[in-house]
């Protein structure tokens, strides 16, 4: 998918802040405006710095394929479970019919679901890896996302290979009802088994990671990394605001707030992410050598 289409697709997001739109006076997709500093940037420059604004450091959201391309050693990725697709087990029709939402998301993203996984290498270290794609119905966790994540944990366990997951999700997928909620338990149980076997698991929490994903497998990692400015939490900010009837403090649920609150290990600039993960793998993998 060309990056310009991706900007259009962003409108579907529920939790993210808008980041960049084409300016009116230049050709679509060539110049974009950074939502951090409001400067107009050449798209090529933004892409070369991994969609981090070279001027203000704002981390713009990226797709799962882009994420994997940035994080993994070139050519090392072999996709798994690629054919899995969502069905409509509850025949969910309130609002836009779920089947239509799935079809639209497939069409828009060219993906079969909101999570891509497989085996690869990072800095020369073999890994099982996965990344969520927020464009696909908010990368919400329904049966397929839950199953693919569970399989990634099981693959890491079977191969005794470290697992690296990149999250971005609105939470559980309500259109699959309780089947979705139970994916939280299923993925957490798989994570607990991997932990018991002392196979390293590193999670990279990106903007936004919320609800049932944060409250299950995503935060059960040995090392929790977040990208700068990422929104991470359980309840969405609007729900919290409505509950307490107060304005939320600045930076609430930001990666930086979570770091200060002791909830994550570190906030890492995307441009240093591959190197940091590689370095961590060297530490955590050393026991098995």
């Amino acid at each position, binding site marked *: 998918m060309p990056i310009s289409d991706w900007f259009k697709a962003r409108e579907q997001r529920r939790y993210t802040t808008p980041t960049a739109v084409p300016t009116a006076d230049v050709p679509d997709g060539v110049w974009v405006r950074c939502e951090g500093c409001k400067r107009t940037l050449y798209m090529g420059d933004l892409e070369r710095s991994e969609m981090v604004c070279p001027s203000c450091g704002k981390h713009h959201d990226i797709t799962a394929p882009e994420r994997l391309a940035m994080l993994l050693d070139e050519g090392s990725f072999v996709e798994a479970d690629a054919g899995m697709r969502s069905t409509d087990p509850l025949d969910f029709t309130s609002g836009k019919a779920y089947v239509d939402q799935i079809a639209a998301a497939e069409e828009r993203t060219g993906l079969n679901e909101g999570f891509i996984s497989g085996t690869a290498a990072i800095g020369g270290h073999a890994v099982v890896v996965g990344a969520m794609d927020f464009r696909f119905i908010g990368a919400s966790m329904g049966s397929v996302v839950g199953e693919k994540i569970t399989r990634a944990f099981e693959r890491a366990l079977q191969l005794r290979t470290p697992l690296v997951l990149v999250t971005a999700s609105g939470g*559980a997928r309500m259109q699959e009802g309780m089947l979705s909620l139970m994916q939280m338990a299923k993925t957490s149980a798989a994570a607990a088994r991997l932990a018991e076997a002392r196979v390293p698991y590193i999670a990279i929490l990106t903007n936004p990671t919320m609800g049932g994903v944060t*409250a299950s497998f*995503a935060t059960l990692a040995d090392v929790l990394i977040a990208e700068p400015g990422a929104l991470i939490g359980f309840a969405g900010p609007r729900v919290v605001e409505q509950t307490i009837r107060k304005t939320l403090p600045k930076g609430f649920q930001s990666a930086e707030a979570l770091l200060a609150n002791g909830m994550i290990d570190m906030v890492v600039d995307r441009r240093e992410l591959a190197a940091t993960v590689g370095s961590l793998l060297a530490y955590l993998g050393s026991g098995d050598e």
Partner: protein
Amino acid sequence: MEFERPLEELEQKLASLKRVDVSEQPELAAEIGELEAEIGRLHQTLYTALTPWERVQISRHPERPKTDDYIEALFTDVIELHGDRLFRDDEAMFAGLATLDGRRVAVLGHRKGKNTNENIRRNFGSPHPEGFRKAERLMHLADRFGLPIVSFLDTAGAYPGIEAEDRGQALAIAECLAALSQVRVPVVVVGIGEGGSGGALAIGFGDRLIMLENAYYSVISPEMCATILHKDARRASETSACLQLTAQDLLRLGLADEVVCEPLGGAHRDPAATFASVRGAIGRTLGELSPIAPDALVEARYSRLRAIGAYAGE
């Protein structure tokens, strides 16, 4: 409850008739008899074809028996254990040891209050992270000492507040899920009222799920779902149906193992009968699970979770 209004009207009419001295107005006796029959019929109609949204309302009825009531009615030798040993004792979560017909177990449960004061202390049954961390502590204790876990679900959800978020609501729930998946003792979950999302799930899955007839369990509250889909919480009746959140739905989906019938009109109409049914169901279930070896139990629990989900493609 809204759907009970026609019934209430008839009952009020009946009550006013009954205040009259029938010996002075003998023609009233027949009228009373007729009214009582009508009430009986309406009762039957209303409560035998309850919609999902009506069941949600019953599950939230202020007089519905709560975790405390079940603990008092079902168990002996109850010892409450307090605190997460980290930050605070969360009164929205019960944790303790108790005995059911001679069987020693660990008990967890969301804790709504009986009155406003109690509800404020218990945050209306919505735990903060420290509530889940207390529950997790009890899970490990039960695991250490071979005590089966009986867990009562009755929460609108984990509390969505600033402090709850700051203290790691998501992480606390995730840790519970991991712990619950690995405890080497039987885990019996009983949905007695509301089963609100992650806050319910944190103590809400195991080897068996028993649901009361009018309890619900849902990925999201019907109102929130309606707000997101339609920007209108009043369409909760519609989303209740779509979400398939009733005990009957869960049984059909293979997520619940047993639905315990309630007295006509809901558990609050005859708590004693409800307690007897629930006591029987828990006792039977513990009896089934107790001979299973710990390894097999944990393996079966994982397989059970592993099978949940519907998808196409390999």
